[in-house]
Each structure stands twice: as C-alpha cells, then as structure tokens.
C-alpha cells in the first residue's frame, strides 16, 4: 500500500487508516486529504483508526496537525475508532492530541461531525448578521 484511499460519501470524506502505514505514506496522505477537501469543498472529514494497532508520536502528530489544517480550510475532522489501549498509550507517551474531536465509532462520529459542521454554519450566519448590523450603525 503506498496510497490511502479517501472516499467521498455525500458531504463527508471518509478515510480508513491501516496498520502498515509508513511515515512517508502518512505525510502524503495529509497532503492528499487537504487537496481533496479543497477540491470537493466538503465540510466534514471522518478518519477511522479502528484498524490501527498503535498510534505513535509521529502518526499522532500527523493526525493532530491535519486536524488544525482541516480547520483552516473551514472544515471539521472527527477521529473515530480509537481503542482503549491506544488511548492509554497515547497519554502515557505524553502526546497531546486534545485539539482533535473524537468519537467511539463511525455512527456517533458522523453525528458529531454533522453537529460540528452545523454549528460552524450557524457561526458564519451570526458573523454575517453582526457585520451587517455594524454596517448600518456606521451608515
């Protein structure tokens, strides 16, 4: 495997990470995913790591960086399928991925993603109203 498939399902990109991931495949995946978000204009990304036996500091950082980059593109990431042993190991390792939204499985992950995307949309609408009111005041 030298490329990770990224599926588009309705308005969401879905990725299933697998165990034999090398560092360079992970980095390419990050670029691929960001390009795909930009091209397809999706607002939500779901990454399933249930098939990953471990998440080490390198992959953990790739995931955490990717979440920040996705936010910059105006979209949201939800990480699903983290096993309890991966959670324990990540904390003991000292890795901070607190900026990443997580959910137990794909179903609840999709729900969370929908909620996050919706709240972003509401924020955008609020911002527009504020600026319009501001304009009126100014005039």
């Amino acid at each position, binding site marked *: 495997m030298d490329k990770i498939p990224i599926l588009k399902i309705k308005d969401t990109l879905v990725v299933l990470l697998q165990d*034999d991931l090398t560092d360079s495949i992970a980095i390419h995946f990050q670029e691929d995913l960001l390009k795909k978000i930009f091209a397809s204009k999706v607002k939500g990304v779901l990454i399933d790591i249930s098939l990953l*036996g471990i998440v080490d500091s390198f992959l*953990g950082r790739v995931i955490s960086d990717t979440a920040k980059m996705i936010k910059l593109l105006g979209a949201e990431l939800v990480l699903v399928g983290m096993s309890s*042993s991966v959670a*324990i190991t990540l904390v*003991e*390792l*000292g890795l901070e991925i607190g900026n990443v939204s997580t959910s137990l499985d794909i179903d609840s992950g999709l729900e969370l993603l929908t909620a996050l995307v919706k709240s972003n949309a509401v924020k955008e609408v609020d911002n527009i109203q504020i600026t319009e009111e501001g304009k009126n005041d100014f005039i």
Partner: protein
Amino acid sequence: MILFELNIEEEKDIVAVRQKSREAAVNLNFSFVDQTRIITAASELSRNIYQHAIKGRAIIEKISEGIKNGIMITFEDEGPGIRDIYLAMKNGYSTTKSLGLGLSGSKRLMDEFEIYSTIGKGTKVIIKKWL
C-alpha cells in the same frame, strides 16, 4: 533467547520492527494494553535509529529472571551518538522536527529502560517489559 533480529535501514523497516515486536508480545502472552505499549515504544526507538543514525538494528528477546518472564528489545546503531543524554531524555527535546517524545515516552511505556551512548560511536537503548 533471541526471537528476532532486524536491520533498520529503510523507513519500511520501522513497520517491520512493529510487526515483529507485536508477534513476540502476542506469543509471550502480554495483555493487549502491554502489547500496544511495547509496539509503540519499538516504533519510537526504531524511528530514532532511522532518523538519527540511518543504520542500526533491533534485537527482540525473551528474557527470564527467577520466575518472571518478559521481553527485551535492544536498539543499537553506529550513528553520531547523543551528546547530552539527560537533555535527550527530556520531554519535548528534539534535534529534528519531531515532538521529542521518543526516548522519554518509551521510558514511560516500559518497565525498564537503559541508554548508552558514545559520541562518534553510536547509541544503544534497551527496553524491558515483564509479564
């Protein structure tokens, strides 16, 4: 007893060390959480070799001490060595762009951790986990 001996020269060798340390940890009947800790530490330390020394090896062994059994993995390289081990062991210290959790994090994940390094000669890290 040596179970596996693996050369670390290419990036894919990090994946191979992960796979073999998993195989060893499973065969030695480590709990699922301990398997994950062992594989994660093995991944961190083999990446250290690949990034800093370019070439080295990992030796995975079954060990016994009295009635207790365990796993020992030795990572050795002939790389540049570590100038200040105390600094290198600090959380977040890194000479590359990594997070600097490799050494300190692996130490936290395992029961025993030893490190020896000579400038210009190389580095040896030994990790152990008891059943």
